[in-house]
């Protein structure tokens, strides 16, 4: 039986398969379909300092092998999270990670501080890459100084594992990655969504209320894989790969490119059992290739 454990800084994951923020609710939405505890961990949806209604309807458009979303960080704010959602997360004994977002550095810091006190949340993922909010969000993740500023500020108040999630909408992903590593990130996750758009030719209107939105799903996998490969070569901290993963083969591509773990996003919508299938598929692959430990795959690309 191959060893599926992986380490991301101080976190030990029972396997390298996590769920991507915003695509797995708070876990319970999937309880009917899988035993969520069998996953390496779950990253719950973004929490901001204040309650947010998100963007108006319509928020979704299907695209060729992908989708655009414009949810815009709808959530009830960090205080509600601490009081009402956190207690429900205690039933999960795998790694539970909070995704933190906001429009200002102060906002990020406030959320991080409050979540720092929650024992059962073992890490935060700093979302400096959400394309669906007017202020902040992606703007933080598309320039080195702002990425540095927010990472550094959160680092000062957050003691546990700090993962920073990068935006792919940049000229040089490695520059941003190096900046957040330098600013104190313990790990990097990438990619968030690519900024995209869809128009309904019959009505002449944008399909999304926000005109542009975030592109996810298999369509973006080649871009995500390239960025993971570039970043994993450039930084010393662990990298978590995200983007269009829908099968064990996809996940293995990301591990070989240098990721220590992966996150499954949009694929959860198509098949709510996809995560457990991916874990089983990775195990099969390791057995078939006589690889005793999944960690051997990380960065195992043969050039």
């Amino acid at each position, binding site marked *: 039986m191959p060893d599926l454990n992986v380490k991301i800084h101080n976190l030990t994951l029972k396997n390298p398969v996590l769920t991507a923020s*915003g*695509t*797995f*609710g708070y876990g319970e*939405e*999937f309880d*009917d*379909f899988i035993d969520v505890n069998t996953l390496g961990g779950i990253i719950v*949806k973004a929490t901001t300092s204040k309650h947010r*209604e*998100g963007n*108006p*309807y*319509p*928020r*979704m*458009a*299907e695209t*060729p*092998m*992908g*989708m655009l*979303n414009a*949810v815009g960080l*709808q959530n009830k704010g960090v205080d509600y999270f601490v009081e009402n959602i956190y207690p429900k997360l205690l039933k999960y004994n795998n790694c539970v990670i909070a995704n933190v977002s906001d429009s200002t550095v102060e906002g990020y810091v406030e959320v991080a501080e409050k979540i720092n006190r929650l024992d059962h949340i073992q890490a935060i993922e700093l979302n400096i890459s959400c394309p669906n909010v007017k202020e902040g969000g992606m703007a933080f993740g598309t320039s080195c100084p702002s990425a540095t500023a927010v990472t550094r500020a959160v680092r000062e108040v957050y003691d546990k594992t700090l993962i920073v999630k990068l935006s792919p909408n940049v000229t040089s992903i490695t520059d941003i990655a190096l900046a957040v590593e330098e600013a104190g990130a313990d790990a990097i996750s990438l990619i968030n969504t690519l900024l995209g758009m869809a128009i309904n030719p019959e009505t002449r209107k944008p399909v999304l209320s926000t005109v542009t939105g975030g592109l996810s*799903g*298999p369509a973006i996998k080649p871009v995500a894989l390239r960025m993971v490969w570039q970043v994993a070569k450039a930084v010393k901290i662990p990298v978590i790969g995200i983007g269009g993963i829908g099968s064990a083969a996809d996940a293995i591509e990301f591990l070989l490119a240098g990721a220590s773990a992966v996150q499954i996003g*949009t694929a*959860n*919508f*198509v*098949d*709510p*059992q996809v995560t457990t299938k991916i874990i089983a598929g990775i195990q099969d692959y390791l057995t078939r290739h006589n690889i005793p430990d999944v960690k051997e795959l990380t960065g195992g690309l043969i050039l």
Partner: protein
Amino acid sequence: MKKYILNLRVRSNKRLNQNHNLIELGCDSPLPSMVPGQFAEVRVDGSPSTYLRRPFSIHRVDRGANTMHLLIKSVGEGTRHLSALKKDDILNIMMPLGNGFTLTRNSEVLLVGGGCGVAPLYFLAEQLFRQGNKVNMLIGGKSAGDVLLADDYRAFGTVYVSTEDGTLGEKGMVTAHPVLAKRVQSFSKIYCCGPDGMMRAVAHIAETNHIDCEVSLENTMACGIGACLCCVVETHKGNQCVCTEGPVFNPKKLINWTSETETGCSLDQ
């Protein structure tokens, strides 16, 4: 209600008219519990441009035959593909999803459906009938050909029809039909499913006549289970997901639904 992912087998696929199909799906094990108003998320295999599942109301459930039906209107790639399914093809389905209609007992009720908005109303009419209600059903369409399955509904009560071009039943909008325009006070509850404009108009009539009303909303959905937050509708409690808080809503809870005056509606979408 526990949700399942099932591989159901197409038992039959009947073309009702040029763009509507009735698909009967069977299963080896007993179909799960479900209630009228709930829906299913169907994976459309074999179509390169349908990555996400498609939501459809549960149209009928036949416990004896252990089958369920979907009523599907072909509007795009996914629905066209489903309409071409053959006997014994397999459909991967997540269900039952969302919340159903609130069922009254021993009352007189009106069900209003427009176009393929009649889909959830068959299952609903049947259950209401079984619970001792006097069921009235108003079906609207642009033309006679759009009035679907009127005969099937007669098993459960009285059926009224209106068409915009007058080719069947009353001529005009459903909202102009005498049963709504004149006799609405007879009903203790109105259930409605159809185009947005129609539902708003019906909700408005219900509101002004102080009649309980429920509508079943459509929305673009990615997950169908409350995980993506893509399918929101504005309610007085903030944005809510149609897939988990609905698809059935009391229109009073929805912003700008009962307050505005709607002067009519067209089934032309």
